[in-house]
């Protein structure tokens, strides 16, 4: 049982890890509290599922989901940079609008994909033809590892380009990077588009992995993403970009694993999960402060 649980947690950790990498771009790199996530994640699922059901290739559908996510991120960027709306509110506005937009795209609250072709079913069929002994039970694992590692490597590389440097400096010290001639409005919009494109891709893959898209599947995504980023930061730190993004993926796995532990030992019902997630994030966020006040207490006693 533990082995199945571990396998599922790694699979989920990887596929939701793409979303967590998106959250990492906004929260850590850009220092932008982007709440569009809860809308752009189901947006990816909605676009992909609708197009697949409409007879399009799952690959086209997934690509369309990526573009839709980039557009959503760009919208948040425009609200923030041109509209001068604070980052939190800009994200909330996009998220709220997307709820209606996602319903429009799907035409109904839920689209099942069980008997539809998906990127996974197509690859599985192809793999079976080429290697008759293909271990089908590990298909998701192998695919996710390839896709997620490719994304991680590309993201790491991007953050080492001139544009990547500008994005990092925008989150770190906007005054400085403006005085070096970079338009921080532009770098913010690029970062938000990239982030939400990844989040939407994650949504599209999750929908095809679990076999349905649901308009409510985005609730709490941002907290899950944050939990992954924070856990990763706490465990591996940010010595380099390579370590930091690896930490995010590892954090995503640990988060999914702890949830399945809680569920399998019946410590909580499925409906308690959001509360549990929130508690994990609160704990991770307050732990350093708690530790500090403990130290101060010790010092003052001495």
């Amino acid at each position, binding site marked *: 049982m533990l082995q199945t649980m571990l396998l599922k947690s790694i699979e989920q950790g990887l596929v939701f890890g793409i979303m967590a990498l998106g959250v990492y771009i906004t929260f850590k790199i850009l220092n932008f509290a982007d709440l569009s996530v809860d809308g752009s994640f189901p947006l990816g699922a909605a676009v992909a599922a609708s197009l697949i059901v409409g007879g399009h290739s799952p690959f086209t559908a997934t690509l369309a989901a990526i573009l839709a996510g980039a557009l959503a991120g760009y919208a948040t960027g425009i609200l923030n940079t041109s509209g001068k709306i604070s980052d939190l509110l800009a994200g909330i506005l996009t998220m709220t609008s997307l709820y209606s937009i996602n319903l429009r795209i799907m035409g109904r609250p839920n689209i099942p994909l069980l008997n539809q072709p998906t990127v996974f079913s197509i690859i599985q069929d192809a793999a079976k033809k080429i290697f008759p002994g293909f271990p089908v039970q590990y298909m998701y694992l192998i695919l996710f590892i390839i896709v997620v590692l490719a994304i991680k490597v590309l993201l790491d590389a991007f953050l*080492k*380009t*001139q544009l990547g440097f500008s994005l990092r*400096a925008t989150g*770190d*010290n906007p005054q400085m990077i*403006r*005085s070096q*001639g970079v338009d921080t409005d532009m770098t913010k919009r690029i970062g938000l588009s990239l982030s939400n494109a990844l989040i939407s891709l994650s949504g599209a893959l999750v929908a095809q992995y679990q076999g349905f898209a649901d308009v409510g599947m985005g609730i709490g995504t941002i907290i899950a993403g944050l939990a992954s980023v924070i856990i990763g930061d706490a465990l591996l730190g940010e010595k380099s970009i390579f370590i930091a993004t690896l930490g995010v993926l590892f954090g995503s796995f640990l988060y999914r694993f702890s949830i399945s532990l809680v569920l399998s030992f019946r410590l909580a019902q499925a409906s308690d999960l959001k509360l549990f997630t929130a508690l994990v994030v609160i704990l991770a966020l307050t732990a350093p402060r708690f530790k500090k006040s403990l130290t101060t207490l010790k010092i003052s006693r001495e």
Partner: protein
Amino acid sequence: MLLLENISKTFNPGTPNENQVFNGLSLKVDDGDFITVIGSNGAGKSTLLNAIAGVFPIDGGKIYLDGSDITGLPEYKRAAFIGRVFQDPMLGTSPSMTIEENLSLAFSRAENISLRWGLNAEKRKLFSKYLSTIPLGLENRLSTKVKLLSGGQRQALTLIMATMKKPRLLLLDEHTASLDPKTAMLVNELTEEIIEKEGITTIMVTHNLEHAIKMGNRLIMMHKGRIVLDIRGEEKTSITIPRLLNKFEQLQGEKFAEDRVMLA
């Protein structure tokens, strides 16, 4: 040549915090000028630099650089020809990025940023050479994060970043004020060396009268948004701190006990 023509600026207009800093300030800066700017708190020294750099739009007047009107140009575009060092050592660098990454940002200042690698062997070699000109040992610490550096090291780094690509204009806003005397001296020496070698037109705000007299070829004293003293050449080299304070009181027709403390 930089020309400020009749500029005005009021912060928070129409509120109880309304603060008129400039009301028709004009200033002509010649090529190769190294101007030191002194004045009491609230005289508008930093606001002057910020107006030139385009941190905020001005309410009235025009700013020309080499004859072209830059009044409406946003800050990031003016960065193509303006280098800046701030008072706060935290402001000039990106703390969680490494020394070489910061230098790379300055190296491609105001160029079209692309998806090319931010760093390569050639750049690293060049940066190392730049850093070896200052006796801080930074040339061997290229991949150290800037947040681990001291204030003086950061200011020296910021200065190098601001002048790496020779700017038309260098703006220094009390860039040694928060450093210990020894480091301040080092950074000041470096400042003079770079400005002299490259012949950069510079405006330097300072609270230190000694520096203001010793450095540069022209000295400006500001008070309440106006230029109350503008001396150069022999007049500047012959001035002393007591005479400068005297002049200040005389020009204002008031006693500035507080400023005496501030400036001395």
